[in-house]
């Protein structure tokens, strides 16, 4: 893959883009911008749902409800993304257009919201794990000192889980970044570099999925696609690696506690 991307890489680094047509560079920028828009909307949607839900399930809910809540919320992970994309296309997009009167049925907002909803289960599950990994003794000690559950969570549990929650958000972000099916079906797929969130957008993975057909092997376009794939690979590996690093460091700190 790196080999396939090499030509484009050299073109970009060597000639400062002089040998590539302007339109192509412009295209890359707007694809990146589209990805940023979709990921940001997705996180804005997913975080305020996943984190409170995880707080409730791990800290507030009685155990007898917890055993039902968590598996049910994780059930969503079993639904294939193509089905979620289908629902976003047939249900969410018309509903959003009716509610907000957007000029296009399919746009970046629909894609962002749909991706956001799609990453909620994963993010919830990871945040819940991070919160549950905080020793319950800390929560209990805080209550024994006269703290309310909220004070115990805010001052003890949350700080202790913060890095794990950060890792969960990074993983959710990585998933949003690479989400292809949903974005492909509901984003409108036009490469528009505008500011409006209600414009159709196209993201990097969608570009990869849509454009490889009819691109001759060895052409500049071909290596450009592989370059983009390479960047996407690097980004998501970096996010994964960062999240894993945080988690390992956390586990090591926990180890000290246990000893």
């Amino acid at each position, binding site marked *: 893959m790196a080999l396939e991307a090499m030509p484009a890489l050299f073109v970009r680094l060597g000639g400062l883009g002089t040998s590539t047509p302007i339109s192509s560079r412009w295209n890359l920028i707007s694809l990146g911008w589209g990805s940023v828009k979709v990921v940001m909307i997705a996180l804005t949607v997913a975080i305020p749902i996943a984190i409170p839900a995880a707080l409730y399930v791990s800290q507030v809910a009685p155990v007898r409800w917890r055993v039902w809540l968590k598996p049910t919320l994780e059930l969503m992970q079993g639904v294939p993304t193509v089905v979620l994309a289908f629902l976003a296309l047939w249900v969410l997009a018309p509903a959003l257009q009716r509610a907000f009167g957007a000029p296009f049925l399919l746009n970046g907002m629909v894609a962002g919201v749909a991706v956001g909803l799609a990453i909620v289960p994963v993010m919830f599950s990871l945040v819940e794990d991070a919160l549950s990994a905080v020793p319950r003794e800390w929560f209990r000690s805080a209550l024994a000192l006269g703290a309310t559950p909220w004070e115990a969570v805010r001052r003890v549990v949350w700080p202790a889980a913060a890095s794990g929650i950060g890792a969960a958000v990074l993983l959710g972000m990585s998933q949003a970044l690479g989400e*292809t099916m949903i974005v492909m079906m509901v984003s409108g797929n036009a490469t528009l570099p505008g500011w409006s969130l209600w414009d159709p957008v196209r993201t990097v993975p969608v570009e990869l999925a849509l454009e490889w057909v009819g691109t001759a092997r060895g052409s500049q376009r071909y290596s450009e696609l592989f370059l983009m794939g390479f960047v996407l690979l690097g980004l998501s590996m970096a996010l994964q690696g960062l999240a894993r690093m945080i988690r390992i460091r956390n586990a090591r700190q926990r180890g000290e506690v246990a000893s």
Partner: protein
Amino acid sequence: MNRGFPDWIFRRLTGVVAWALFASVLSLVLGLLLVVVPVFLSGWDGQEGGSSPALDHRGSRLSLLLLGTATRTLLMSLAAIPAGILTAVYLAEYAPSGARATRILRWLVHGLAGVPSVIFGLLGLGFWISVVGVGLDRMAGDSAAPVWGRPGLLWASLTLAMMTLPVLVVSTEQALRSVPQELRLAAMALGATRLQVVMRILLPNAWVGIASGVVLTVGRAFGEVVPLLFTGAVAETQRSLALDEPFVDLAHQVFVLGTRSPEHPSSRPLLLTCVWVLVFLSLLFHAAAAVLRSRILRAEQDRL
């Protein structure tokens, strides 16, 4: 200052969000399974009566789609599961722990486990088709019509296998590591060799965990579409199922029909049927994994 108030807000707010999420997930899943059910049932009723050729057609389309999906999932499992388990056993038991190479390998596997599927599609295209497939064709010498150097069932399956392999390794290694160290040490203290430890202690104790990881991963690959776009799924094909031929696929069909359906209302029943079957089977995988996991939890409680 009333300290009870923020606490009340905190509990109410998180509770409302969590229960709302719970309700929407439940209604989504049940909705997918129940609302679509009449369409689905009417399809089968019609087919049994053999009255409508359109419904007959739909039934045969559906079985073709299922056949394609089942074959590529099976081929993928044959390639990925043994390799994944072997790699995980190596990483957990044989690889020199702490060595730099092992650490790098583990980081790589964990990193790849979260890489978007579109990358694997591209990788399948760039490696299996452009390199291996084209190479095979060249060896055969007949350059007029590419046989292997084009998208097909085998390449799709192998691409999916590449995609699931790291996930399988991660989940299997985790299952192997959750076998208590004491058991392993006790076996070694009795003079067991490494292979005996693996075969008699690790695998028997970890198999439920391994199996639940495998089922979950295969289930996810079952509903995956994106890599297939690159490597061989097509909307329709006249050819019969063969390793070197493009094929029709259930999940892919949802994408195809879903994006074009407004103009083709006639394909709507088939689309809904596909969605139903896809959701049902995916949830079946998920439920099987959940059942296995609950067995682990129970076993852990027994151990305590």
